[in-house]
């Protein structure tokens, strides 16, 4: 997966997490990304999301 393609998939998944997508962004997603790319990046982003939450929790509990 080329770097630009990877970035495009990350952007699509980021918007998916928010649950919003612009019409132009959506059009470019369906023409330029495959289902497998989105699925793999989606799982990676879920793990990153968990990591971010754990990091936040560590930070909060460390301060206390």
């Amino acid at each position, binding site marked *: 997966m080329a770097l630009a393609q990877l970035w495009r998939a990350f952007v699509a998944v980021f*918007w*998916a*997490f*928010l*649950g*919003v*997508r612009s*019409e132009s962004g*959506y059009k470019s*997603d*369906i023409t330029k990304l495959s*289902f497998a790319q989105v699925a793999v990046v*989606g*799982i990676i982003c*879920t793990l990153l*999301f*968990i990591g971010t*939450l*754990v990091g*936040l*929790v*560590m930070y*909060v*509990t460390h301060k*206390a």
Partner: protein
Amino acid sequence: MEAAHAHAHDDHHHAPAGIGRYFTTTNHKDIGSMYMWFSLIMFFVGGFMALVIRAELFQPGIQIVNPDVFNQLTTIHALVMIFGAVMPAFVGYANWQIPLMVGASDMAFARMNNWSFWLMPPAAALLVGSFLVPGGAAGSGWTLYPPLSIQGGISVDMTILAVHIMGASSIMGSINIITTILNMRAPGMTLMRMPMFVWTWLITAYLLIAVMPVLAGAVTMLLTDRHFGTHFFNAAGGGDPTMFMHIFWFFGHPEVYIMILPAFGIISHIIPTFARKPLFGYASMVYATASIALLSFIVWGHHMFTVGMPAAGNLFFMYATMLIAVPTGVKVFNWIATLWKGSITFETPMLFAIGFVSLFTIGGFSGLVLAVTPVDITLHNTYYVVAHFHYVLFSGAIFSIMGGAYYWLPKWTGHMYDETLGKVHFWLTAISFNITFFPQHFLGLAGMPRRIPDYAPQFTEFNQISSIGAFLLGFSQLLFLYVVIKCIRGGVKAEAKAWEGAEGLEWTVPSPAPYHTFETPPAFH
């Protein structure tokens, strides 16, 4: 030869006669109808149990059932409603609608489909029949927490077996649904052009395949603890009952979404039809559904805030749970945006859809309240929780099922249902639902515990209001049964496109949908 050919052709358009056909049928419409009738019967069985519970709670003290039977009723009411009513209803919709919506001739694995359905009645018989065995039904609560579920009698084994069978049925159903959706769509229907109901079921089916084996594992460990000398959950033998809770809720929380995502799908069809506008933000809806499904795996701990987790664990699950409100809020926003400036009419399906959006949102908000760890520590195991999950499951899942039934009845039966009676049914249901469950928020905030047959006198008034509402709610559903039977027997002839604003392949076939449809894949534009 000519005659034989004509005869063979006829067979494609006439259903086999006789009641016996239902045992061997592989037709998605027959199987869909059986799922829905099964679901409706279980809805009344579970509803009857709920009315016994509410009758007992009409006043303090023990009047009708002893505490043991009360616990059995709450346990089996929940299991029957979740696994017997809500889930089979959605599988019934999937069977009827997915092939029609994607332009497929039937489900991918038609014989497995028959087996998926016929596993359900034995499972239901085990659950409901367990009231008759010595010691009565399982009384551990639907979550089957040890040590109660380890100590219970033979009925717990029956419940475990029922859960296993229903899980197998769900997994087979899911494999069927995924294969049908991925492989049998009409040419031209790309993934991102599928109807929303198909999308929500595709994601739900993956969730089912992911979590049903987890539940099967948990109840198998219970079974071996009970009979084969293991100590997974037995503290006396070095096991840990808390581990069961973690495993159970790793299944249990995605299960919540299994029961609500198809509802989102149905509502996403009804609202555009009666607002006469395309669904606002289709792509956002698909993205939000996928996102909710992924998040559903990392929030199970919010069911266990009072169990005793490290503060970091509680915080993690609190943050993650609150974040689910974001994609869910997007969905509610999109439904409202679809209504915005639409030419809205309020037929019965639309009334149920609007009721869904309004009341499900209340359930969502009380869920956010419960997501706050310190608040949950106060409200855990109170009636506030009972109010919350009935707002998401009754005015969420069941409202969508009722709305969907009115929406597609013309397609299934070929007749329009009685609109006046449908509207009466909606208003009776919506009003009595709120009379039943809204006061339970107050009871919970005042500290009334759930799953208890007796209570302190200060809770009496709200309990009486709730019980009166429950009886009204229960008996109102008989009207639904009457409307459905009346619609099957006759009524105004439904057109192929029964609703002016309806879109999709299912509205291109005649009403009632012929026994075999889309033998040649339709053109999809």
